[in-house]
């Protein structure tokens, strides 16, 4: 409530809490990386692959938990291996969504197995075990430690730098693969590099919004930006901006309203941005059509008048 009454004191109050500072640090980095990568995911038509990755992230994390190693090892390992597999299948065997679907449905089944191994093997430790699976699925941005937050921000920064470095040729390859490869752009290599970045981002985003919701952080900002502007580079940065704003607003919402989990706040704001973008673009198309009709009608009438006067 304080946030609404006086924003400045509200924000200052928010930042006094260490858990909120960590969430903001990690969340901002993860959002920027997901927004930029998501812009390419939408442009390359690979949203379904992102969907598949979200389930792989779950299985990877639970496998790590079940075997008692660091959760992040399993998370990143599974995401990157699966992303490379998708890149390989996509280029060799023209993997369609049936193949992707069959593979990730099975991977999810493995996730169910690891969840059961984990919960049965550690049933003595009480409520904590039940929460581990849930926090992998739905994220725990407010539960990050200082080390985790710094690590997440550092990884995000690396992803952003790498993506910006390859952004121009990758965009060329995404828009017209044939022409790009004819012009000597290493299309295949870029595809692999992009999938690795996507895998790392998926692992990152799982820690923020959870395996089930990372798709939203990839698809909603990218889709919204693409609806707002036809210019690809503007769309790229706009997508990153929308994702960051969604995370900030979502975190504030989750803090201000009790019982609202941060994941829901973030996704609600991102979806809201998308709905607004769709509405705006529909309005623009309708208006353009109307002015176009008026324009052609008046041009025709002036032409007719011109004929009549001569």
């Amino acid at each position, binding site marked *: 409530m304080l946030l609404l009454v006086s924003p400045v004191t509200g924000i200052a109050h928010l930042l006094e809490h260490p858990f909120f500072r960590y969430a903001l640090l990690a969340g901002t980095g993860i959002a920027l990386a997901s927004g930029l990568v998501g812009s390419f995911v*939408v*442009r390359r*038509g690979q*949203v*379904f692959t*992102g*969907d598949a990755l979200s*389930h792989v992230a779950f299985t990877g994390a639970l496998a790590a938990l079940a075997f008692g190693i660091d959760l992040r090892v399993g998370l990143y390992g599974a995401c990157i291996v699966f992303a490379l597999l998708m890149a390989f299948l996509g280029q060799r065997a023209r993997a*369609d*969504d*049936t*193949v*992707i*679907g*069959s*593979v990730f*449905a*099975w991977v*999810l*089944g*493995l996730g*169910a*197995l690891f*969840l*059961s*191994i984990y*919960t*049965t093997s550690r049933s003595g430790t009480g*409520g904590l075990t*039940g*929460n581990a*699976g*849930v926090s992998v*699925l*739905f994220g725990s941005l407010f539960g990050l430690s200082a080390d985790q937050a710094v690590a997440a921000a550092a990884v995000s920064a690396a992803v952003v730098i790498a993506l910006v470095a390859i952004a121009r040729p990758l965009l060329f390859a995404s828009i017209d693969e044939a022409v790009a490869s004819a012009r000597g752009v290493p299309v295949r290599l870029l595809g692999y590099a992009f999938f690795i970045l996507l895998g790392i981002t998926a692992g990152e985003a799982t820690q923020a919004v959870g395996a*089930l*919701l*990372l*798709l*939203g*952080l*990839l*698809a*909603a900002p*990218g*889709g919204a930006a*693409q*609806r707002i502007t036809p210019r690809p580079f503007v769309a790229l940065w706009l997508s990153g901006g929308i994702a960051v704003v969604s995370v900030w607003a979502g975190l504030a919402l989750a803090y201000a309203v009790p*019982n*609202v*989990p941060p*994941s*829901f706040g*973030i*996704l*609600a704001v*991102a*979806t809201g941005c*998308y709905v607004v973008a*769709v509405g705006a673009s529909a309005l623009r198309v309708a208006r353009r059509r109307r002015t176009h009709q008026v324009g052609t009608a008046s041009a025709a009438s002036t032409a007719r008048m011109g004929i009549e006067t001569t």
Partner: protein
Amino acid sequence: MGTDGMTGHLTGGLQWNLGNDTRQLFAYHFMVNAFRAGTVVAVVAGAVGWFMVLRRQSFVGHTLAVVSFPGAAGAIWLGLSATLGFFVGSLAAAVVIALVPRSGSGSPSSEESAVIGTVQAFALACGVLFVSLYGGFLDSLTGLLFGTFLGVSDRQVVTLALVGVAMLVVLGCIGRPLFFATVDADVAAARRVPVRVLSVVFLLVLGCTAAEVSQITGALLVFALLVMPAAAAQQLTARPIWSLAATMVIGLVVTWLALAVAYFSIYPVGFYVTTFGFAAYLLAAGFRWVANRSGSRRRLPVMGVAAA
């Protein structure tokens, strides 16, 4: 998950005697119900999934399946029946996705898939919110996500059977024109087949089926029963009727086998369903590969590719 884990200790264990083991399988009422429900679910999911794979709508199918979870979570939060929530969630998502125009018969455009992805993520976020508002039903949360194959009541079996028959009847009525519209949308439209109406009706059928199946397999594993048998069957034969029949047979075998194995094991049913399904798919793909290599004169056409 808890019920699944218990059954292994509850029984006498596997005796490697087919007669005894089968008798043991059906000794408990919950197991009989699980087989009944599994049979209904496998047949309906197979038939609907066959069209889904043919229409290349796996992403939509997965989204409708997953979206039944927030529906059920919301229903539980409001104190309504979870069954109602499953159906409302999936059907609402089907309507939203149907409102987005589909560009031709090919793969969904990037904008469309962004819409589907956003719908899915937002719906799941609502599910998280409902869980949080309700306040800690962690056990049933895992049930909603990964299924409670072994806790199916008599009433649920009847409901499942009724909805399943209804779905099959609808699918039987629209099957021929839907197949036509899927294989060649332009020619079908020229022949006055209502392509758009058919695709909306199919989305609703897909939503209902996803809701139905997710009560048994959980919202996350529905997709396995929808996609895997159909994907395997379409590798085996290009003739529509045969591959449709093969889909149902594969679905049934996978489900029955998974239930039977899960009964004697401590691991969840969902794991066995997906693993056997994936094995069936790999076997079918391998069979196809071998058949293509040995009899190179007559290559087996793939249904999906032939249709595209």
